[in-house]
């Protein structure tokens, strides 16, 4: 069974290291749309501490997905600095950022993005499938993770034989296989019904807490935000409010 106890026995919130896992400083993102310039992010700054579950919330077009993409290096800021695990990323080449993603970041996508020709356990192994490491230990870890997400009985199932919730749980296990410091989840419940979405978020929160993994998730879903340790509300490319999850939320900014 996978050891989910932090190595030094401390609480997850204090395990990792000192300093922010994610640091965003004065970030702008501009897109050219014909002759116009779209300001997708305007001077955004925040930090995420180890063990946090931070939710980016806002209507479509508010910039939350763009921000998540910048955190993962899937796109680069026009101006400003994104640091991951203390490492500034503006000077990194694509292959250096790729290596940083590999060692530090796990992704969860809205549409799961599992490989249809691989079984569940092979999909979990995917991020490590190209590395000359001990295959047996990777397989053990993948099996352990699938058991942790409640899919120990679905190891050899292809994605087409898994429900949406099961596919997203497989994707959570895949995001965790490389022991990342931070998981970036892009609308992880958007394709799931409410009950399944709740279960998936609960699993994500619980597992990342036990494993000491930080989570940054973008979402429309207030119930995801309710589970977050902090909610950053976004509108028109800016963070317009920061809320602790326990405080009464103000859903007035939301548009379905």
């Amino acid at each position, binding site marked *: 069974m996978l050891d989910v106890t932090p190595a030094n026995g401390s609480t997850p919130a204090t395990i990792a290291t000192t300093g922010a896992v994610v640091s965003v400083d004065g970030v702008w993102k501009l897109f050219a749309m014909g002759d116009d310039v779209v300001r997708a992010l305007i001077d955004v700054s925040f930090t995420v501490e180890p063990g946090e579950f931070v939710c980016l919330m806002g209507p479509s077009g508010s910039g939350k997905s763009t921000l998540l993409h910048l955190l993962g290096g899937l796109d680069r800021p026009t101006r400003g600095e994104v640091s991951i695990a203390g490492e500034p990323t503006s000077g990194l080449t694509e292959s250096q950022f790729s290596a940083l993603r590999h060692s530090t970041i796990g992704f969860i996508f809205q549409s799961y993005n599992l*490989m249809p020709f691989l079984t569940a356990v092979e999909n979990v192994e995917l991020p490590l499938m190209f590395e000359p490491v001990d295959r047996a230990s990777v397989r053990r870890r993948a099996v352990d993770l699938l058991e942790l997400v409640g899919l120990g009985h679905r190891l050899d199932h292809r994605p087409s034989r898994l429900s949406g919730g099961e596919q997203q749980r497989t994707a959570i296990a895949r995001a965790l296989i490389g022991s990342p410091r931070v998981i970036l989840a892009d609308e992880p419940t958007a394709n799931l019904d409410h009950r399944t979405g709740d279960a998936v978020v609960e699993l994500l929160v619980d597992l990342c807490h036990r494993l000491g993994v930080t989570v940054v998730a973008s979402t429309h879903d207030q119930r995801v935000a309710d589970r977050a340790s902090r909610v950053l509300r976004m509108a028109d490319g800016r963070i317009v409010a920061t809320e602790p999850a326990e405080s009464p939320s103000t859903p007035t900014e939301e548009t379905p």
Partner: protein
Amino acid sequence: MTAVSLALAYGVRAAARRRRLLVLPAVTVGTGAFLLVLVLALMPAVRRQGATFGDAAAVGRAAVVVALVVLLVGALEVAIAATRSVSQRAREIGVLCSFGVPPRSVLAALMVEPVATAGIGALVGAVLGAVAAPLAGAAGLADAGPSPVSLAGGVALAVVVSVVAATVASAAPCARAVARPPLASLAH
């Protein structure tokens, strides 16, 4: 296992599910390989018969060129299939890149499809050519059977030319797909 062999192993599995889409390019490559082996194996007979029309060497060369052109058209078809394939697999490429799989591993995995298509097509076509050449001789279509050496040489040449041509023609679209920003691939 090395990183390259792991990438190739993944590439084989990814290509296997798409095998139906690869039949046509493989058949074209195989046809070219078949013709090339047949022409090379029966070259003495081709030349003798060509001499009755005029320049024996020129007729022999023309036969080889025709076979090579079919082979290269096959390689081009493979490259077109590879271009279509990387477009259809854009999301897969984006996912691999977002998990930090090194670009050269992704490229190696993508190249399996065109190289295997050309290699398998050429091998099957060339072996059929090597079987057909002695039969053609025995049936009296050619006045002399091929030597085993010319058959083996023809098969090797057909396979090597096919694989090299398909690799060269497919490398650019595959490399372009890998070099795209991951976000562009994921949004595909």
